[in-house]
């Protein structure tokens, strides 16, 4: 299987916009998703910087309060719906799921292309909503979202379309993983990235329709005055929160599970050790996906739910912690007695574990009823979810980008610049968000355009951190661009990894593999003279 294939053309060779717009090649679709989502990562990031700029002073200084509210809504909505949810699954997932299982494409290539264009339609509608920009927060809580003059119906329609696209992608992946595995690729020989993606796809297919329907109800309320959520006409505003979190809680696992999959790939490769506890990692993904459906109420402990319901949700919430902790233990155990090197993918993978541990260990403060009542809706929550979402998912995404860059582009990156970027990102991230734990603990509520002077110092520190973080990210992407333009050509398998995508040329040929590989082993047999038979 090793060695450069003689047949076929690199998937990037065909030129012209048609070759992209009409492509059914999962790799090209993956690349289009990556470019689109990264663009939104930058736009969302600019909004974040504007927020941090405004928060330099306790009083409104650069923008009006309304503008601030619009910015944090757009920051949240774009980062979540247009970046974090699609980036790893639809971008890296599209590219690497078929390659990991040794297939030529996904099960339904045409549907895959359709999902991408539905996604584009979705974000165009989202952009159209900027005529009267949203100021509800990404959570759309009623009755405010039913009353505000902003283009709520438009934005929610855009997200509805994006949701549709992710349902279709999820379905496509589930079928692909079931039906298209190369001969010999049993379930227990699948790379763990696939297990993460499989669990993710299930959540997307089950949970996304709920948010779709919720937004439809909200649109009906706004357009036709059907009062589902308006108490003055017999509706219930808290019902919206139940619907919303029934989707939005499971969806945090859509964000994190694929990233955990990437970490499970990168750690063994760079420590030259078999992954520790393969089955535990694989099945804990499914356990997390399942438990994730039972805990949505923990976003609503102060919404007047009965104390009994609160206790129930709190109890279940804690059990999500167990499979998550198991994964972390497994990764650390994989390092034990390894032969570790610290190229950029590994640096980001270790950073993931470190930051995600902070995010994970601050979860119990919010899961425990007594302390959640205090910390809910304060900056503590903002810090917590940035540690899990940005410190977790986004670091996992960066690990994946650096890891697969040679495969996707056929070029190597400048390692030194990548490390400088990493150092800036690590520093900036912690300065920005660790401070927020303190700000939140001291009682500053989130979504505040203006705040009491007693929180001034903390906010200034966070803003300085965000500037460092931004510089780090710019350096990283500048390095990517340089790599694409003039990086040295990459060999087929620069990291000497064992998963199938590395057993073909970089960049891969359009058909992925000259011939469909036959799998005889699991992909983690590092360090041993010859792989073991699973």
């Amino acid at each position: 299987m090793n060695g450069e294939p003689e047949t076929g053309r690199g998937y990037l060779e065909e030129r012209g916009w048609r070759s992209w717009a009409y492509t059914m090649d999962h790799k090209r679709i993956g690349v289009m998703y990556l470019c689109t989502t990264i663009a939104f990562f930058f736009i969302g990031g600019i909004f974040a910087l504007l927020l941090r700029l405004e928060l330099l002073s306790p009083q409104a200084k650069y923008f009006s309060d309304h503008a601030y509210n619009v910015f944090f809504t757009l920051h949240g909505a774009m980062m979540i719906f247009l970046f974090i949810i699609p980036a790893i699954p639809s971008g890296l997932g599209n590219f690497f799921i078929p390659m990991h299982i040794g297939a030529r494409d996904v099960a339904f290539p045409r549907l895959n292309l359709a999902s991408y264009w539905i996604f584009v339609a979705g974000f165009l509608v989202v952009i159209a909503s900027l005529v009267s920009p949203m100021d509800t927060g990404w959570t759309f809580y009623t009755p405010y979202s039913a009353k505000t003059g902003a283009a709520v119906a438009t934005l929610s329609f855009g997200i509805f379309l994006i949701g549709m696209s992710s349902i279709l992608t999820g379905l496509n992946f589930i079928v692909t993983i079931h039906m298209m595995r190369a001969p010999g690729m049993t379930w227990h020989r699948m790379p763990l990235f696939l297990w993460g993606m499989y669990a993710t796809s299930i959540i997307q297919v089950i949970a996304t329709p709920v948010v779709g329907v919720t937004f439809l109800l909200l649109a009906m309320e706004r357009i036709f005055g059907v009062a589902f959520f308006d108490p003055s006409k017999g509706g219930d505003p808290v019902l919206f929160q139940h619907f919303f979190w029934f989707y939005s809680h499971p969806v945090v696992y859509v964000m994190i599970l694929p990233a955990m999959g990437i970490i499970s790939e990168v750690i063994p490769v760079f420590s030259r050790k078999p992954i520790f506890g393969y089955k535990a990692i694989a099945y804990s993904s499914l356990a997390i996906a399942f438990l994730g459906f039972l805990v949505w109420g923990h976003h609503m402990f102060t919404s007047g739910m009965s104390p009994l319901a609160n206790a129930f949700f709190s109890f279940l919430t804690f059990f999500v912690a167990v499979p998550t902790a198991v994964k972390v233990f497994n990764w650390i155990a994989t390092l034990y007695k390894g032969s570790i090197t610290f190229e950029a993918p590994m640096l980001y993978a270790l950073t993931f574990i470190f930051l995600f541990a902070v995010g994970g260990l601050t979860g119990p403060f919010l899961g425990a009823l007594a302390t959640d009542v205090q910390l809910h809706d304060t900056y503590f929550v903002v810090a917590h979810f940035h540690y899990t979402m940005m410190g977790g998912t986004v670091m996992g995404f960066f690990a994946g980008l650096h890891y697969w860059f040679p495969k996707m582009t056929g070029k190597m990156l400048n390692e030194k610049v990548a490390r400088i970027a990493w150092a800036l990102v690590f520093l900036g991230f912690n300065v920005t968000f660790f401070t927020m734990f303190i700000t939140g603990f001291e009682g500053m509520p989130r979504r505040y355009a203006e705040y009491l002077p007693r929180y001034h110092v903390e906010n200034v520190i966070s803003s300085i951190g965000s500037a460092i973080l931004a510089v780090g990210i710019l350096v990283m992407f500048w390095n990517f661009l340089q790599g694409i333009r003039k990086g040295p050509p990459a060999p087929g398998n620069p990291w000497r990894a064992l998963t199938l995508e590395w057993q073909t040329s970089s960049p891969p040929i359009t058909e992925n593999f000259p011939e469909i590989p036959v799998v005889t082993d699991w992909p983690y047999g590092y360090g041993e003279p010859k792989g073991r038979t699973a």
Partner: protein
Amino acid sequence: MEGACREKGSVMGKVFALGAASGQAAQVDAVFLMILVIGIFFFLLTQGLLIYFAVKYRRRSPDRDNETPRITENRVLEFFWILIPSIVVVVIFYYGWRVYTNLHEPEAGAVEVYVNGRQWLYEIKYPDGRTAINEIRVPAGKPVKFILSASDVIHGFYFPDFRGKMDMIPGRTTVLRLQPDRPGRYPIFCTVYCGTGHSNMMARLIVMPPAEYAEWAAHGEKEGGEGKEHEPLAVRGERIVKNAGCLNCHNIEGPVKVGPDWKGVYGRKVLLEGGKTVTADEDYLRESIVDPGAKIVKGFPNVMPTYKTTLPKDDIDAVVAYLKTLK
């Protein structure tokens, strides 16, 4: 608003001095500290190992990387690292829950304050009919019960110094209990995003020494409360009940008319059609008036009209306050 929130020293400082603005806050802080200690322990354990392994097992010579041992599982280790976190989370859950239910236990003789949130201020009403905006006065050392509502969108009601928080939801009544120990002025923040003025929606809680409070309550016009409307809520409620024709169907005491009689209605266990039982709290009483069909008392016909459109929200509050006096 600034003066309202005179610096009280950082909350952080208080935790480590273990002196919060109330006994309740200290209990919450204890849970916080417990989780913090457990969290730091696991953080140091896992990240310590991570860094230790990363340094110890870094690749020293490029040709040695085929000599790593084949370790793929260890049943005993894995059993314990599932078991121990499971126990730890149950313990954390338990303490979080115990303290939470303690704080929500109703206490007899609580001072009641009605607070209504609207964009972007808090309207305060005391049972004796005084009103105020964005300023709440309560005596130190006594339990206080805040009865919360909202007129437009959802708002939040949060005092960081007491670690307490509750949402204010249009169409519902929610309750937040507090026992402030130390006199002082404390900020109250809106925590549920409610539109343009969200970050300016603040009030102050003035905890007064009992003697001062008693004096203020006796002639409040001097300071604080706007106290124009001095008809006590319950008195106003009684007047409304007489005018609205409730008494055609309800007796306060004595023979049952069309509907249940009212003596002791507040707090009693009501058996409903369909077999469920509910406790008649503020929210139930309010609902019985605005949406009588939602819960039908067992043995009675569903004939009570809704007063949702005929009685403004204020009047319903007053009626509820009156019903509560019928012991």
